[in-house]
């Protein structure tokens, strides 16, 4: 019995290692270093800026849209800068420095920061934001309620990290659940299916 246990443990350890080495990429928690220390917590959390202010194409396009630097400069032009009572001086200095970087290194040099994509779907997955937001956004609700199921509440994140695996199982489970009645009836009603061509073409 002991021996069987030992063998089982060995096999499990081996499989575990194999999974770690050859398994799918670890997605959750992915938070790569970005060229610019943008803070979602301050903007979306503290100031409650709606997601769509920056990600303006999310309701009608495939892509949510990464804001151009001009969107940042709408607020961060010199006049509007000083409205935040900084908790401490170093914090203030840090923010000052960042905004200085934004305006000197990017805006005035006509350059855009090269962001690293966090929620990165493989090339063979055709994800479109608009219909998902349409389905998830209940009338009168905040935009972020539609974003949270996949992205988590970024308004609480200093640095955005991936919250869900966003693997196929994640998608499929959601596509299945709305009615649980099999895909055919569901498809006819909502256009949600679990057939391959939904996402892969």
């Amino acid at each position, binding site marked *: 019995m002991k021996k069987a246990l030992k063998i089982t443990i060995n096999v499990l350890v081996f499989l575990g290692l194999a999974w770690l080495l050859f398994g*799918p990429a670890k997605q959750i928690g992915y938070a790569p270093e970005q060229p610019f220390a943008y803070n979602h917590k301050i903007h979306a959390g503290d100031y409650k800026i709606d997601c769509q202010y920056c990600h303006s194409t999310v309701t009608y396009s495939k892509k949510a849209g990464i804001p151009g630097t001009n969107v940042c400069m709408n607020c961060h032009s010199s006049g509007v800068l000083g409205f935040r009572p900084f908790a401490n001086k170093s914090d203030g200095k840090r923010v000052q420095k960042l905004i200085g970087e934004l305006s000197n290194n990017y805006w005035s040099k006509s350059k855009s920061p090269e962001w690293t994509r966090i929620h990165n779907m493989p090339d063979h997955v055709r994800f479109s934001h608009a219909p998902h937001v349409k389905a998830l956004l209940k009338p009168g609700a905040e935009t972020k309620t539609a974003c949270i199921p996949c992205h988590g509440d970024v308004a609480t994140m200093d640095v955005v990290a991936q919250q869900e*695996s966003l*693997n*196929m*199982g994640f998608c*499929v*489970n959601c596509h299945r659940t709305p009615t649980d009645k099999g895909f055919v009836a569901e498809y006819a009603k909502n256009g949600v299916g*679990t057939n391959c061509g939904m996402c892969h073409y």
Partner: protein
Amino acid sequence: MSTSIYSLGKSNVQIETDILSPMERFPGKLWWFTFTIMLSLALMMITLVGWTFVEGLGLLGLNNPVNWGLYIVNFVFWVGIGHAGTLISAILYLFRQRWRTTINRAAEAMTIFAVMTAGLFPLIHVGRPWMVFFIFPYPNERGPLWVNFKSPLLWDVFAISTYFSVSLIFWYMGLVPDLANMRDRMKFEHVPGKISSWGRKLKYGFVRILAIGWVGSGKTWIHYEKMVMVLASLATPLVLSVHTVVSFDFATSVIPGWHATIFPPYFVAGAIYSGFAMVLTIMIITRKAFKLQEYISMKHLENMGIIILVTGMMVSFAYTTEFIVAAYSANKVEQYVFMNRLQGPYAWAFWTMFAANVVSPHFMWSKKLRTNVVVLFLISIVVNIGMWFERFVIVITSLHRDYMPSSWDMFIPTWVDWGVFVGSFGFFFTWYLLFVRTLPSIAIAEVKMDEANDLVAKELGHH
């Protein structure tokens, strides 16, 4: 009951020595020569396959109508070869055919290696071999997304792997008493030389492990005999199912020339036909090389010759049926395909097959010819060539001119195709050569049993 014509009249020690002593000597020049050639052919195949992995399957001569080419021909060919072993060890066992005793071990080994060779082809034949694990139904993070149980190719995966594993355990379980015999022969000094050198120690270690503590207990023998019976009963439908499932690959499709209900029995008969031809080829070489003429007598060879004659006629019958069905079908496409076999651009392949498979076995009617080793050897080779061409005819000629005349095209194998084909023989024979040098190629315990049971029957008066 008197002693059978297959009785050897040899002592146990003599039998053991005859069979095991070739393995205790250092291999001779001839073995090394053959082994080097076969190994290099196998390595050539591995290199070529590696090249296709890196560059793509475009290196083969395949194209759009002929998406399956020599790889699939080879696959079906080798699976066919892999039928004889289990057939001998299972079906002939159930039919109490005593002559199977001396040939079943090597034939089963041939089965294992042929199935290994065959199993390579579907794997190296896919466009993305690194994704080949998709064909196994395993829980995954994709939903989970499973496999398509309606696909004959998936049935193939199950059929071939089941066949391989069942044949392997059957073969291995048969080996266990002999391995114990080897172990004890090496340990106790009734063999020349002691366990001294490093190499022998290693060999002894392996043999000891593989013998799994077999001591020849009567209680175990009773279970063991039951197990052999059970496995033989299980392997019998299995061996018939494998080529049936392989034939489903073709029979369940819509392609004229493939879509035929006669395929399962036709393929099984063909497999037995080619399998026995290959057993014959190998046995003739093995008995000569290891001086086992007493064990594998002319009577054995003759029996196999008769089986070749019978299955050859079954195959010929299947060919005829196919043509008659096509003629009767009133299906233009079907009729065209069969006419195309007779007179199309691949007619040479058809007529080669015809000559080899339909004509050549009829030499076996003559007792003189079927007891002539040289004739038997030649016929066995010819039949195998014919059976390879049979698969070529089925796969290539059906595909190259199917429904859409606009897509008709020729299949011109490249040297990669041929290289892998030749290399597969290298792969197969490398394993076989290693086998004959390391494991007893005749089931010692079974031979002893047959000998002893003759005596038991004689003395105790029951069979």
